[in-house]
């Protein structure tokens, strides 16, 4: 294990050096174009709308999940974790299969003589963002429900409160506490949306700042404008983070999803029908795209061209490397965080940057010395590991705190320190969150379509990038196969690391 100070220095360098390069380069080089301003406006309103709709739709879903018991409920809650890990480009492919021009929904609409729904443009971006973030919001609200003390529910039951009174005394205070954090977390994700806006958006009126950076970079070769846009992106992230810091952000995911609520709290009659309809619709909305990818793609996998397999091998190496780097940075920082004030802020520093901003900065740094295209994969690895670090820290920190609260004195009284402490105490007690963090790091890196788009010359490809170019050349069979492979590898890596962690947990 490397010392926390070294880890902190590395993280600070990985974030601040690219930001510094961007700032130096942006020094009044090129002004923004009117279309950049359009992109800024679109970024803000689509993020607000996506976050608002995700939260609003999550309320009935979380309520239904909380008060109903049915076979497969556990699987449903697990399914809510899937879009969080799913590569965005695969999510887009799945949504196109259902809501696209030749999808099931448009078939139905045509049969009813209704106008066609287009997934391309602003509405498509928002729908994709809801698909990716509604489950996150629902899980946060479900945790809010479960955090209501059982005594409170028992009291409501004992008093025979009708649904309206339950809502007033139980649900509304919980929503007031949880919703602002959920909204801001999703807003932050959507503000730095790249892959969704790149594939479904288009034109200045449906482009995010991240896409504008990419276009300034790739098509206009205007590094100055890319740098200026990066500054705008940083300002947006800082503003959203500043707002979030005023609230205590609830952790966006986590274990512990099954404390039985008193069953009689669930109201009957039409409430039951409403809950059933909500759950069915949500399951269909979340499952259909995943199933479409799996069914359409699985038969195409054997016929995938060799270049896709090479890209898959690259992606696997990249994911493993990024996982190792993430944990190497996250473990010492989280162990230091309860005592050293600087450790947590440093580990959260990557939240201020986005994939394209870091990519632009690193491009500016390496360009005078090396051909950036030769560094496509290493740079992607660094960016992925850096951007995953805050998630890993959030997962590890609560466990580290309870580890230290429970066993620090005992370990000290036995003189347990250094490697022996790491091996006998730290690693066994942290096995679960370490495995979970590793799974998330691997899945994020596997599915990432961000910095690589700036650096790749088409030769050193990752699987998401290969999938994107297959979609761009309308080779939809091969794209479905690649999407299915990517989904399988992403979920497989996540499940593997999560299982290793659970298996290594001696409890």
């Amino acid at each position, binding site marked *: 294990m490397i010392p926390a100070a070294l880890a902190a220095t590395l993280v600070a360098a990985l974030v601040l050096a690219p930001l510094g390069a961007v700032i130096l380069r942006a020094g009044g080089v090129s002004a923004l174009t009117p279309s950049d301003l359009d992109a800024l406006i679109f970024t803000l309103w689509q993020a607000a709308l996506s976050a608002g709709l995700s939260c609003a739709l999550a309320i009935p879903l979380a309520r239904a999940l909380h008060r109903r018991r049915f076979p497969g409920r556990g699987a449903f809650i697990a399914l809510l974790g899937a879009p969080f890990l799913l590569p965005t480009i695969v999510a887009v492919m799945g949504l196109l299969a259902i809501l696209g021009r030749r999808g099931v929904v448009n078939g139905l609409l045509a049969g009813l003589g209704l106008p066609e729904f287009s997934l391309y443009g602003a509405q498509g971006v928002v729908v994709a963002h809801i698909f990716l973030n509604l489950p996150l919001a629902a899980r946060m609200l479900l945790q809010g429900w479960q955090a209501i003390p059982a005594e409170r529910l028992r009291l409501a039951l004992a008093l025979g409160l009708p649904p309206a009174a339950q809502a007033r005394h139980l649900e509304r205070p919980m929503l007031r506490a949880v919703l602002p954090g959920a909204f801001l977390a999703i807003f932050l994700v959507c503000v730095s949306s790249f892959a969704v806006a790149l594939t479904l958006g288009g034109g200045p009126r449906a482009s995010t700042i991240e896409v504008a950076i990419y276009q300034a970079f790739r098509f206009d070769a205007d590094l100055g404008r890319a740098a200026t846009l990066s500054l705008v992106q940083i300002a947006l992230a800082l503003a959203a983070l500043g707002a979030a810091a005023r609230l205590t952000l609830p952790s966006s995911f986590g274990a512990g999803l099954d404390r039985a609520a008193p069953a009689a709290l669930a109201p009957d009659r039409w409430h039951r029908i409403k809950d059933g309809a909500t759950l069915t619709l949500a399951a269909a909305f979340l499952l259909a795209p995943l199933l479409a990818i799996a069914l359409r793609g699985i038969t195409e996998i054997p016929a995938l061209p060799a270049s896709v397999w090479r890209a898959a091998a690259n992606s696997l190496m990249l994911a493993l490397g990024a996982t190792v780097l993430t944990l190497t940075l996250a473990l010492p920082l989280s162990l230091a965080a309860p005592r050293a004030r600087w450790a947590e802020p440093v580990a959260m520093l990557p939240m201020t940057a986005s994939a394209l901003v870091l990519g632009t900065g690193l491009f500016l740094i390496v360009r005078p010395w090396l051909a950036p295209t030769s560094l496509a994969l290493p740079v992607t690895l660094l960016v992925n590991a850096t951007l995953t670090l805050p998630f890993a820290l959030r997962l590890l920190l609560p466990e580290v705190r309870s580890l230290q609260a429970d*066993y620090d*004195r*005992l370990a*000290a009284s*036995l003189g347990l320190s250094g490697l*022996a402490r790491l091996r*006998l105490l730290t690693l*066994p007690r942290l096995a679960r969150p370490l495995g979970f963090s590793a799974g998330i790091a691997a899945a994020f890196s596997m599915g990432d379509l961000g910095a690589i788009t700036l650096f790749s010359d088409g030769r050193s490809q990752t699987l998401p990038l290969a999938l994107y170019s297959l979609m761009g050349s309308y080779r939809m069979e091969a794209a479905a196969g690649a999407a299915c492979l990517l989904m399988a590898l992403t979920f497989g890596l996540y499940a593997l690391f999560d299982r290793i962690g659970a298996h290594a*947990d*001696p409890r």
Partner: protein
Amino acid sequence: MLTLDRLRITQDDFALEADFSIAPGARVAVLGPSGAGKSTLLTTIAGFLAPSAGRVLWAGTDITGTAPGMRPLSILFQDQNLFPHLTVSQNIGLGISPRPRLSTGDSRRIEAALERVGLAGLGARKPVALSGGEQGRVALARCLLRAKPLLLLDEPFAALGPALKAEMLALVAEIAREQGTTVLMVSHDPTDATALCPETVLVAEGTAYPPRPTAALLANPPPALAAYLGP
């Protein structure tokens, strides 16, 4: 000999002073109302709290700045005395060394210690599979192997029933007598003190008083102790 040399412990508006010595091999109860600072005193002797003034000495050597694990003492807390993810043997083995593989000689010593506390053959279990009394015995077995000359007990048996607690205290007394261990034991209960400890340190009103014979102290309690004991 344990010497508290003009020791002063302060935490916010709480302060405790102690200035006395405890003879080698003595068994001393630390008695007093809750909140008086009994645990604080033991925690300071064990090295988890730094005193604001004064020194802690063992056999004439200043150990005030020594790390907890390097002090010539073992301490048992109210809870969390065992690592729940390690087996009983591994937990006891930490009393010998934190090496990954213990030698056959070590394993034999662990087995002997388990036998001594009446838990022969339970080495492969996890603490969660043991009762509260058995967990206390495992912690005692580890103290046996650490073989430190001073044993601090911060009410490790408080959660046990009266009969079980008396049994554990008797085991402590037996082991302490065999090994010549000095014992300092926090207690709420004057009967525990009478049973195990010939001497008692009274902690009340910001002072830990020098040890006095337990029987005499309880027979003729000073006002602070009388108020605590009740009529």
